[in-house]
């Protein structure tokens, strides 16, 4: 099996507490029964609207959150119940790049300290080697190694994101979770970062979980795309297949809403307008969670939650219409 990461029936509920005794009165079902796998060297794109649980999924996979239920496998090893100490060696292989390059770098540390820290934590290399390594890493991500002693505020957004990438690469990971790595950047800089990520993937055979809401960028970088809605995975397919042949009513609406940078095509494009907004994950609707906004809903949709079905061609969908 070539799966580097496999997730089975993952659930993450956050309790809502009330009163002085902190009684659990309800749960936010941020991730509710999500399964996927990523092959080594490939990219899985995770898309969906804000609050659909994509970031929580990413963070639970790397065990920044303890999963409520389900299994997480890394190289076919069950890492779900590992202690923090046992996770250390695995975390070296799993790194994360964060959304906000302004908030995810410590403003009081120089760039070289930021990159060095992860090597120190994982007790890699001696001090001389680390210095060499930092130079090399800055070079790899396209920064000038003379800038190593500067502070994050001296860099622009795109450069800071490069520092974030260098930090993630410092411990030689195999799997990187990119949580909206480009959404805070200017358009002309986004392409730079995407190209850098692609080059690095080829060079080091990296595996990415790419979380984003910019669907055209996700399509560009991913081999496979999973669409999430309110904590559920509603559709998974190869990226071209998903774009050319979306099946789930939600995916169709989502794709039709992407603004295309081409005025003639944009005029011709038929938009499927979704009514209303995403319901609260505290009180999700019964049955299929999408049914209050779905045009095609049937009786069964309000009663029973659909499960992922394989339509063939590696195209999976959770919908009662199929």
């Amino acid at each position, binding site marked *: 099996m070539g799966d580097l990461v496999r997730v089975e029936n993952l659930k993450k509920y956050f309790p809502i507490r009330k009163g002085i005794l902190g009684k659990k009165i309800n749960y936010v079902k941020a991730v509710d029964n999500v399964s996927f796998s990523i092959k080594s060297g490939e990219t899985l794109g995770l898309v969906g*609207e*804000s609050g659909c649980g994509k970031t929580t999924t990413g963070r639970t996979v790397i065990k920044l959150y303890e999963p409520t239920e389900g299994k997480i496998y890394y190289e076919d090893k069950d890492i779900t119940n590992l202690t923090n100490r046992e996770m250390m060696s695995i975390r070296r292989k799993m790194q994360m790049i964060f959304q906000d390059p302004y908030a995810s770098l410590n403003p009081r540390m120089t760039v070289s300290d930021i990159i060095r820290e992860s090597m120190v934590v994982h007790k890699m290399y001696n001090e001389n080697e680390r210095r060499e390594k930092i130079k090399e890493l800055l070079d790899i991500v396209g920064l000038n190694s003379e800038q190593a002693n500067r502070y994050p505020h001296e860099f622009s957004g795109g450069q800071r994101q490069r520092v974030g990438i260098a930090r993630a690469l410092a411990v030689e990971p195999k799997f990187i979770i990119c949580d909206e790595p480009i959404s805070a950047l*200017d*358009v002309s800089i986004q392409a730079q970062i*995407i190209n850098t990520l692609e080059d690095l993937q080829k060079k080091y055979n990296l595996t990415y979980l790419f979380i984003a809401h910019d*669907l055209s960028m996700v399509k*560009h970088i991913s081999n496979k795309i999973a669409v999430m809605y309110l904590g559920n995975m509603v559709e998974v397919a190869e990226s071209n297949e998903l774009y050319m042949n979306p099946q789930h009513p939600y995916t169709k609406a989502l794709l039709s809403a992407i603004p295309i*940078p*081409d005025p003639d095509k*944009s005029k011709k494009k038929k938009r499927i307008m979704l009514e209303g907004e995403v319901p609260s994950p505290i009180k999700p609707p019964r049955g299929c969670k999408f049914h209050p906004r779905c045009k095609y809903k049937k009786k069964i949709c309000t009663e029973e939650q659909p499960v992922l079905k394989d339509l063939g061609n590696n195209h999976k969908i959770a919908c009662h219409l199929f």
Partner: protein
Amino acid sequence: MDNILEVTNLHTSFYTMAGEVKAVNGLDFSVRKGSTLGIVGESGSGKSVTMLSIVKLLGTNGKIKEGSILFNGEDVVDKKEDYMQTLRGNKIGMIFQDPMTSLNPVLTVGYQICESLIKHKNMSRRQAEKKAVELLSEVGIPDPKNRLNNYPHEFSGGMRQRVMIAIAVSCNPQLLIADEPTTALDVTIQAQILDLMKRLQSELDTSIIIITHDLGVVADIADEIMVMYGGNMVEKGSTRDIFYNPKHPYTKGLLRSVPNPDKLIKEKLIPIDGQPPDLLNLPKGCPFSPRCPNTMKICLMKNPDLMEFENGQKARCWLLNKEARAKGKVI
């Protein structure tokens, strides 16, 4: 007169501890009545400062140094605050980027909508509330009567942006300025909001300036597009001309750096190298020259003038000047 807004030679600067930040340098543009102008450019290109200059909300350290801004033929640059208050929210509606922070969290939504109606349209509170209910249902908020008494935190992001739009259009403005109105929203909600803006425009015949960095959004909504870089316009033209016949290397670069989801075979993106300019010390010549693939000697020495083409398209680049191009060598 067919221009609702005419901006000539606008210079806006901010005075900071580090020195003078020249945010807008000699900008000229106009907006036709009833049309939509899209302004695109990266952060720091002067898009938002241009908008804030028009309504004169620059804060204490910002100043319009030079130029004129004619709104309906009348120059607002030298007008006093009292006069500006009769324009803002009345003849000029504003929608800001972040619906979370641009509504007052301690006042009900109803109060905030009624405020401008009472101030500008001399309505009584009861009349204003009636109108507010109409406005909320117009922008697609269910159960508007009860929602009037809710506070902003009881609305979702898309709903709050609708409330912002309701406030902005409450006094039937002649000009609506929307600064990144959909950037904080999800695509499905973005589509709803853009649709709403288009519908309101056709009903009220409002002129719109929409500021965004999303090329897809302007392709959808704008009649004309102005591309800004380093505090000035580098290109302006009809939406079709800008997308299908861009003249300036920055515009071309922007269009190339976004992926086209319709392509089945994966092509590598072509980014624009380098970083946006530092407004504290702009390069001497063309501000784009450090990132331009075809920089010539003259580009480093002198900022080019705006060239106008037969189709009305305008661009600011030495490469379009035949003489400069013949003499100049690409370095």
